[in-house]
């Protein structure tokens, strides 16, 4: 490991993996916290939501102890439908093919975390020139992911027109990704040296057109009192351990793009988007503004020339590596042990775990009608939280 210490430094808390507590500059033995089952007070009932119900796009069971109307506490069980993925004993290439499917919608982030951890383990420097390519992937993914979250925020508010406009933009971004990488979810992008990105001449114009349309829609949503009232004051949370857009909406400048050495964002003039509202509206603003800043980064990467792919089949060796990248949901950490090119141990710390805890805390004292707005504002993905990596 080139960047992470094994003794506690002064870095911020990121989360837990199976065997480690992860900080922004170190990994140390895990802190075991027993989650107490929620007690039921007189007159209360547990309102069960999921795992198979409308309004949720993934299988998750949510238990809401409530005295009626007001949600006293929330217990999210992302492991109700637990997936198991076996990665140990596989070659780097074979493991990669599974890693990018942990959370297919954000495969690019997982690809980047895995590749950078492998490079760290094998002491490969960033002189291969693949960082630009990974940045382009991740920023396109961020745009699509944030569009998806904003779209999902419009749905419970009954904002049909912006909902469908955002859905259309999301689809256009997916097609843009498909035209560059041959797959709308980036699958197999780094599988072979031949699969290099195809930057067409009209790409910049298409991206700029999308950016302008989004900026207009984003502004009009902010001027809608009905929409803003739904989000303002809903699901407030402010904790130093928050990650990603949730942290930045609470006034923290936490962003792996600026405080992680894994992926080089220098030279893009990037500065984290920060809001201080701490609520669902602040998270909406952070995501909306990050879409605009991601478009700016995409524009710069394209202007710099043709980005490179990783070429995993050429990577062999033994070592221990770790990486941390900024996925659309927040810090994504990967710990990887390689032995003769085979995966001996791999652990992920996904941001949705942190976001689920934040959601549970932020929901306390809110009412049922706020539930969907708050849930969607965290951009939680159960696929990366309800998975067991073996």
């Amino acid at each position, binding site marked *: 490991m080139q960047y992470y210490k094994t003794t506690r430094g002064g870095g911020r808390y990121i989360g837990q993996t199976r065997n480690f507590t992860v900080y922004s500059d170190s990994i140390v033995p895990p802190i075991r916290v027993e989650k107490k089952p929620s007690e039921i007070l007189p007159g209360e*009932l547990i309102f069960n939501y999921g795992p198979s119900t409308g309004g949720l796009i993934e299988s998750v*069971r949510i238990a809401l102890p409530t005295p*009626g*109307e007001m949600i006293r506490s929330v217990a999210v069980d992302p492991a109700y439908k637990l997936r198991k993925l076996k990665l140990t004993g596989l070659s780097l290439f074979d493991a990669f093919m599974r890693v990018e499917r942990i959370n297919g919608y954000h495969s690019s982030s997982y690809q980047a975390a895995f590749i950078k951890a492998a490079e760290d383990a094998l002491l490969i420097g960033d002189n291969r020139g693949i960082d630009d390519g990974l940045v382009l992937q991740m920023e396109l993914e961020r745009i699509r992911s944030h569009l998806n979250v904003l779209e999902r925020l419009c749905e419970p508010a009954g904002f049909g027109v912006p909902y469908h406009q955002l859905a259309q933009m999301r689809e256009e971004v997916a097609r843009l990704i498909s035209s560059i990488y041959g797959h709308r979810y980036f699958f197999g992008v780094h599988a072979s040296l031949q699969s290099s990105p195809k930057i067409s001449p009209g790409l910049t114009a298409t991206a700029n057109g999308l950016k302008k349309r989004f900026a207009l829609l984003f502004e009009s949503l902010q001027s809608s009192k009905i929409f803003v009232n739904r989000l303002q004051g809903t699901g407030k949370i402010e904790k130093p351990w928050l990650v990603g857009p949730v942290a930045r909406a609470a006034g923290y400048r936490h962003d792996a793009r600026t405080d992680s050495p894994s992926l080089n964002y220098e030279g893009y003039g990037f500065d984290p988007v920060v809001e201080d509202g701490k609520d669902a509206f602040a998270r909406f603003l952070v995501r909306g503004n990050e879409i605009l800043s991601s478009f700016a980064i995409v524009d710069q990467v394209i202007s710099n020339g043709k980005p490179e792919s990783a070429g995993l089949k050429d990577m062999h060796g033994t070592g221990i590596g770790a990486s941390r990248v900024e996925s659309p949901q927040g810090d994504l950490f990967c710990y990887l042990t390689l032995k003769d090119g085979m995966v001996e141990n791999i652990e992920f710390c996904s941001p949705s775990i942190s976001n689920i805890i934040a959601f549970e805390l932020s929901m306390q004292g809110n009412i049922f009608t706020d539930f969907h707005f708050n849930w969607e504002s965290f951009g939680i993905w159960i696929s990366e939280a309800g998975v067991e990596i073996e």
Partner: protein
Amino acid sequence: MNPAFLSLIITAAAIPVGIRWRKASYSLVIAGSIVLAVFTLLGSGDLAYPLSYFSLIAAIAWILISVFSMTYSSGYGKWLTPLFAMTVLGMMVILESSDYVTFIIGWEIMSTPAYASIGLNKEHWNAAYVFMVFSEISTVFLIIGAILAVQETGTLDFRFQSLTSDLPLLLIAIGCMTKMGITPFMISEWLPIAHGNAPANDSALFSATMTLMGVFGIVRVMLLSPPSLYLGFFLLAVGVLTVFFAALFAYVSENMKMLGGFSTIENNGSILAAIGLYVALDGSVLKTYLLSVILIFALAHSVAKTGLFIGIGTTRKENFSEIESRKSSTMTVGWFLVTMSLSGLLPTIGGLGTWMLLESFFMGAYQYGLIGIASVVAGSMIALAEGLASASMMKVLSFTQVHGRPGGSMKSIEGYVLFATGSVLVLLFVLANFLVRPQFISGLPSVLVYNGFTIQSRFSAADFGLISPLYVLAIITIFAALAYMIFDRRGGEPRVVPRWNGGVDFDQYYTSFAYASNIRLMLKGILRTRMRDGNRQMSVVDVFWYAMQSFASGYRRFARQFAYRVMNSSITWYMIYMITAFMLVLILAFVI
């Protein structure tokens, strides 16, 4: 001898009999009540309309409660029955009284055994004391009011006579309002019932008929008093305030008897508001109409409240959360009709009472001026509170008959008594034409509603609104039967669909507490909703009781400080205090 005194003798006999023979005692109370009802119907009483009908109302309630008590009261020791009979006797004395002294004696005979009954079955020590304190406060006001009324005559004749001042009515009304649980004395009604762990038959007796005596007392003196705009407005305002707060507190009550207690207060508030409008008006058709409104509403309240507490008694529980579902067709129908009546819905006497009450206030708008404005505001507030009252009753119906874990058993006779009570509510609705003053009975022969079948609401020669109870019942019955015959194609076989609970096993039941939490949160400023208070996530307080307690404890602190700091062993200050107090008493005596 007034033949109605026979009812007093029979009921008095029930007291000693009740110590040894419980069922015989209740049978004697029933017999006494029947005698009272019969003589009332035969017109033996010399009381003016609508006073004579109060005996009929009370008798119906006592008969139903006594039948229910025969099986219900077996587990409450030997004193419950004689105390019950003595309370009824006290009320009979009140109803038969023709002078203030007898009235007050009856009042005390009614209150004292009720206090003992609460004390013997206490759950919290303060319930019986609170009941007695407010009872005695009411007696004090009644005595002062009676003295002032007699003083007006210039003799020592204590018989009820016409009055020239509204002051006796004000004082007697306050005395009766204390007993009726009117704002701010709501505690006097709900605490003894809910926290005193009063048996359900006593709860029914207190709520249905003891508070009726308060109404009777006010109406008794009201009919003798001159119109008074300010007193009328005072009673109207207090009544409306009571209706709103009591309906609100009933809705959020988790204790079933407390809900019943607040429902009683809400009904009494409605009656008081009608009384207020009556007192404010000076000679009009509307004033006469209001007498019928007071009678019909009091009748509906007393009989339906009897049913409500009988129903609560059948559960053998105090709180909604403890109820085990007991399915019985007769009981379900009884519950349905009782809650319909208390919700102010047709075809029950409660529906008619609510219609007549609201009509009064909307007609009051045509009196214009201050009375017009006050009527519209009062009518709107009462209509709002009626909505909350309906929601409370739906809560009762839902959590006794629909929700709840299966199990439990019941004595079938209690189900039949509840069914009988519900049926009486429908029967009274149909027969209401005989209870309303003849000048408000008419018909519309052109549409086959014959003369005598329609009750009018009117404040002048022309009618304002019309209702025909028999036709309403007939239409509802015919259309319900038609719908049943046309759409019930499964031959009575219920269709059951398994519940979907997000894909996991069903192990949770909706709670009555959750049912009312929307109001707890929306009106937290009024209800003083507190979070995580004790073992509850949310709790509310009776703001008036809270204010009284705060005032009392503040005064006690002040008195203690005053005694310690100023009067402590200081003969000078003590003398100043004595002289000042003596002068103040003299001044007050002179002014009054």
